């Protein structure tokens, strides 16, 4: 509990410290320092493996699963999607000339459109530009194309930029930060209630994963789902668990939340797709 308070205070979110306006860089340093102090035995880059970085038994089971990764079919379906021309003869490559290894560029602040652009949003923009239907954001074929892009992007370093010359970018970051720390739902939890102050603690038999490392490995094959899902799907699942109404997938709220949370994870290598319990 004391640790929760330290983090919340550090990020300037309780009323007594509301006047302290921390910069995103300061937030990020405090955020990462908090988790590195809370889990002193975890090497920084191992945070990308979630609870498997902190629990030896869970890690053993997970490594056995990873010998035949359940997300492999998604990667190969995604490769087919990447190479199959759209109705107009163009391909994803026409939208993403540097692709498919482009996951490290997202999310980013688009100054012209004054909004956070995520990879799933860019994928659907590409599709509609070339006369294809957009894909649903939570699960299904979008996880295939995202799995292929993530696989090809493995090893890239999370490097979200909040441009100093556009106050609206900072506003989007602050909005995402607020969503992260605001209590919500009938059960009155914030994201931080579980994944900061109680990370590593057991909720019944489940170990709560640390927020540091949570953005690096999407999409995920989750045993609970028996299926692949996107970060949007997980956000919605968390909201439902605390009995809050989820925001719209890829709406401004979740894009801003992803912008904040991924920025907190700057410096960590990308390791998607992944498998989780």
């Amino acid at each position: 509990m004391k640790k929760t308070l330290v983090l919340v205070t550090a990020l300037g979110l309780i009323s007594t410290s509301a006047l302290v306006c921390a910069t995103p860089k300061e937030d990020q340093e405090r955020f990462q320092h908090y988790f590195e102090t809370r889990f002193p035995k975890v090497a920084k880059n191992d945070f990308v493996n979630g609870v498997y970085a902190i629990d030896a038994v869970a890690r053993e089971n997970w490594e056995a699963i990873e010998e035949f990764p359940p997300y492999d079919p998604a990667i190969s379906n995604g490769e087919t999607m990447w190479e199959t021309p759209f109705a107009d003869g163009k391909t994803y490559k026409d939208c993403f000339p540097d692709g498919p290894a482009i996951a490290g560029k997202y999310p980013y602040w688009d100054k012209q459109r004054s909004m956070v652009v995520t990879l799933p949003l860019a994928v659907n923009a590409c599709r509609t530009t070339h006369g294809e239907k957009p894909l649903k954001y939570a699960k299904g074929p979008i996880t295939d194309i995202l799995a292929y892009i993530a696989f090809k992007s493995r090893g890239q370093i999370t490097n979200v930029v909040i441009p100093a010359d556009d106050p609206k970018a900072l506003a989007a970051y602050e909005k995402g930060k607020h969503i992260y720390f605001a209590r919500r739902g009938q059960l009155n939890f914030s994201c931080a209630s579980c994944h900061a102050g109680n990370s590593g603690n057991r909720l019944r038999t489940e170990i709560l994963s640390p927020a540091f490392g949570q953005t690096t490995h999407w999409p995920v094959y989750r045993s609970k789902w028996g299926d692949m899902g996107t970060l949007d799907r997980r956000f919605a699942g968390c909201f439902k668990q605390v009995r809050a109404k989820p925001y719209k997938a890829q709406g401004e709220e979740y894009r801003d939340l992803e912008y904040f949370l991924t920025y907190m994870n700057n410096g960590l290598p990308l390791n998607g797709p992944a498998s989780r319990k």
Partner: protein
Amino acid sequence: MSTSRRDLTAIALALTAITLGATAAESPKGDIAAGRAIAMDRAQGNCIACHVLPGGDSPGAIGPALVAMKSRFPSKEALAKQIWDPTVRNPDTVMPPFGRHAILSEKEFNDVVDYIWSL
């Protein structure tokens, strides 16, 4: 948004006062066995998710063990207030406000209070 939430909070607090007043005045007798079932049920109280409870399998480890309650709370009413809205005593707690947010019905709430008080 913030105004309406403040209004809701005010209403909830008023209701809290009324209900707790009633609790104190009538001191309704809860059903300990029913309370135990609610405390163990994932879809209801789910106390076991965070607290050790006597006889409960695989409890969580977020909150303190629920033992010797009569030595930790001066009265059943004080315990009821804590379960109703633990953020009153500790604004940073992660424990859900079981009464204030109507997570439990009035009967379920009284049953849980009697069960926890019996520990």
